[in-house]
C-alpha cells in the first residue's frame, strides 16, 4: 500500500466513489435519490474513463439486478442508494446472498419510515444487519464515520465481497454523504481483478458450464445451501472492526456507530474535560458485530449507554453481546433531528447520575 501524502477535500459520497474506482470497480448501476446523488454523478463521469460502465437504471429494482448480473460475471461492481431505494433493492440483494454473488451496496441512510426526509438517520440498522430481504441471510455491513473511512472501507468492501462471495453493504448516512472532509486517497496494490475466475460466468469454453442460482428444489439441496451459508457467516465472525476511545478507566461506555459515533466522540471529549469518566465504543463492522470486545469491557464492570439516530436497534446487539454480565441503557435521537454533541452529553450525564 502506498500512501500519497496529497489530501483532497471531498464529500463522503465522493470518497466512496473514489474508493470504488481505486478498488477497480468496473460497473456501477445507479438511480437518483438524495442524499447519495454525488456517487452516481461522480461515477457517470469517471467510470467510463477507467474503462468501466456506468448505467443509470430505470429503478432501484433494476439497478440492483444489474448488479446481480455483473457480480455473477465476477466483476467488481457497485450500486448506491438511500433508504427508500435500498428497500427496493432488497429483492436482488436476497438473490445475490442466496446465489453467493459478490457485490457492494452503499446506503446513505436518510430519515424514515416511508419517504421520511433527506436528513441523516440510522433507521436502517436492522434492515442492513438482519439481511433486509426475504429468507435467512446476512450481509457484511461496514459503517464509516469519516470521509477517510468511507474511502478505506469501500476499498475493503470489494476485497471482502470476493473473499466471502457475499454482498457487502457500506452503511453511511446523510451526514457522511454530504459532509466534506480532507481525505488521503491511496491506491491498493495487487488487486485480483479476476478473483472470481473459479466460479464466475465467462463462457463455457473448454470447461464445464457454470450455473449461478438461488433456486434449490432437489431434496436436501436447499438445506445444504443454507448450511453452506451458515458456515460462511460463522467464518465472517472473525472479521470485526471497532474503535475504542477513552474506555480504559471509563465507568460508562457510550456505544454508537457511524456519524453518531463521531458526534459521540465530541461529547466524550467534552465530558472528559469536565472530569467525567466516560468512553466510546464504536463498532465499524455492524455485521459481524464486535461482541467479544464489548463483553470484555462489560467484564471489567463498566456500564453501557447505546445512542443511535433511531428508536433503538443496535442496542439489541449490544445487549446480546454483554447479556451474561451487564445490560445497556438506550437513548434515542429521533430521525428528523440533526444530532449535536449536546444530544449525547445530556443522556450520558443522566445515566452517570442514575448510578
Amino acid at each position, binding site marked *: 500500500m502506498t500512501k500519497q501524502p496529497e489530501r483532497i477535500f471531498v464529500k463522503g459520497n465522493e470518497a466512496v466513489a473514489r474508493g470504488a474506482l481505486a478498488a477497480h470497480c468496473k460497473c456501477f448501476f445507479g438511480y437518483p435519490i438524495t442524499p447519495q446523488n454525488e456517487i452516481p454523478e461522480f461515477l457517470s463521469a469517471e467510470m467510463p474513463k477507467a474503462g468501466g460502465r456506468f448505467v443509470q437504471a430505470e429503478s432501484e429494482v433494476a439497478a440492483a439486478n444489474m448488479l446481480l448480473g455483473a457480480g455473477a460475471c465476477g466483476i467488481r461492481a457497485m450500486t448506491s442508494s438511500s433508504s427508500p431505494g435500498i428497500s427496493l433493492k432488497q429483492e436482488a440483494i436476497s438473490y445475490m446472498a442466496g446465489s453467493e454473488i459478490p457485490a457492494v451496496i452503499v446506503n446513505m441512510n436518510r430519515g424514515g419510515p416511508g419517504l421520511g426526509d433527506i436528513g441523516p438517520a440510522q433507521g436502517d440498522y436492522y434492515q442492513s444487519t438482519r439481511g433486509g430481504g426475504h429468507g435467512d441471510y446476512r450481509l457484511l455491513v461496514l459503517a464509516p464515520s469519516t470521509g477517510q473511512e468511507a474511502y478505506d472501507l469501500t476499498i475493503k468492501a470489494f476485497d471482502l465481497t470476493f473473499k466471502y462471495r457475499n454482498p457487502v453493504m457500506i452503511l453511511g448516512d446523510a*451526514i457522511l454523504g454530504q459532509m466534506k*472532509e*480532507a481525505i488521503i486517497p491511496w491506491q491498493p496494490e495487487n488487486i485480483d481483478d479476476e478473483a472470481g475466475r473459479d466460479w464466475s460466468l465467462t463462457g463455457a469454453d473448454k470447461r464445464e458450464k457454470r450455473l449461478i442460482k438461488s433456486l434449490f428444489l432437489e431434496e436436501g439441496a436447499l438445506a445444504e445451501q443454507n448450511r453452506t451459508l451458515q458456515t460462511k457467516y460463522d467464518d465472517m465472525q472473525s472479521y470485526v472492526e471497532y474503535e475504542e476511545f477513552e474506555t480504559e478507566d471509563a465507568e460508562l461506555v457510550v456505544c454508537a456507530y457511524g456519524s453518531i459515533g*463521531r458526534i459521540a466522540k465530541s461529547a466524550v471529549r467534552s465530558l472528559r474535560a469536565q472530569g467525567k469518566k466516560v468512553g466510546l465504543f464504536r463498532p465499524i463492522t455492524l455485521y459481524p458485530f464486535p461482541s467479544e470486545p464489548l463483553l470484555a469491557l462489560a467484564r471489567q464492570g463498566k456500564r453501557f449507554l447505546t445512542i443511535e439516530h433511531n428508536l433503538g436497534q443496535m442496542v439489541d446487539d449490544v445487549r446480546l453481546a454483554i447479556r451474561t454480565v451487564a445490560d445497556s441503557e438506550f437513548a434515542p435521537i429521533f430521525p428528523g433531528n440533526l444530532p449535536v454533541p*449536546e444530544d449525547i452529553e445530556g443522556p450520558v450525564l443522566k445515566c452517570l447520575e442514575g448510578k
Partner: protein
Amino acid sequence: MARHLDAIIAGFGGQGVMLIGNLLAYAGMKDNLNVTYIPVYGPEMRGGTANCTVVLSEEEIGSPIIRRPTSLIIMNRPSLDKFQPRLQDGCVNIINSSLIDMELADKERVECHAVPCNDIADKLGNTRMANMVALGAYVQATGIIPLKAVIDSLPNVISAHYHKLIPSNAKALEAGAELIG
C-alpha cells in the same frame, strides 16, 4: 493551545455562503488543519436562509455539526436572529452591515464586527463578491488561518468556468481583511 474554531456561515440562498464555507475549509486543509464542511439542510432551509458549518482543528474532528459555534458569518437578518443567540460568549460575529441593522448586534456578549459587505463589493464592481468580503474580514478577525491560504485556495473552489474572476475575488477578500485591520 491547539488551533480550533468552528463556524456557522449563514445568509440568503444565492449569497454564496456555501462557497465561502467550502473556501474556508479548503484553505484550512491547505494550512494543515483537519477540516469538515457540512451544508445544513432540512427544515432550516425553509426559513429563507442557507447555512453551512465549518470546523477547523489541529485535533481530530468529532462532530461536524455544532449547536453553539465559536464564530459566525451572518449575511442577512433572519440568520442573525437565528444564530446570534447560539454563538458562544466572547466569540467573533461577522455581520453584513449592508443588510443588517447593527443595533441588533449583541455587542455586550459577543465580538461583533460590522462589515458592509455589499457596499464594499459594489465599490469593487461586483455585488456578488459580498461573501468574499465577509470571509476576508472573518479570517482577519479570527486569525485562524492566514489570508494567503484562502486566496491560494480560490482556484480549487471556484469552478473553472469562473476562474477569470479569481483576481477580483482575491481583492474582495483583501478588502474585507483590511476593514478589520
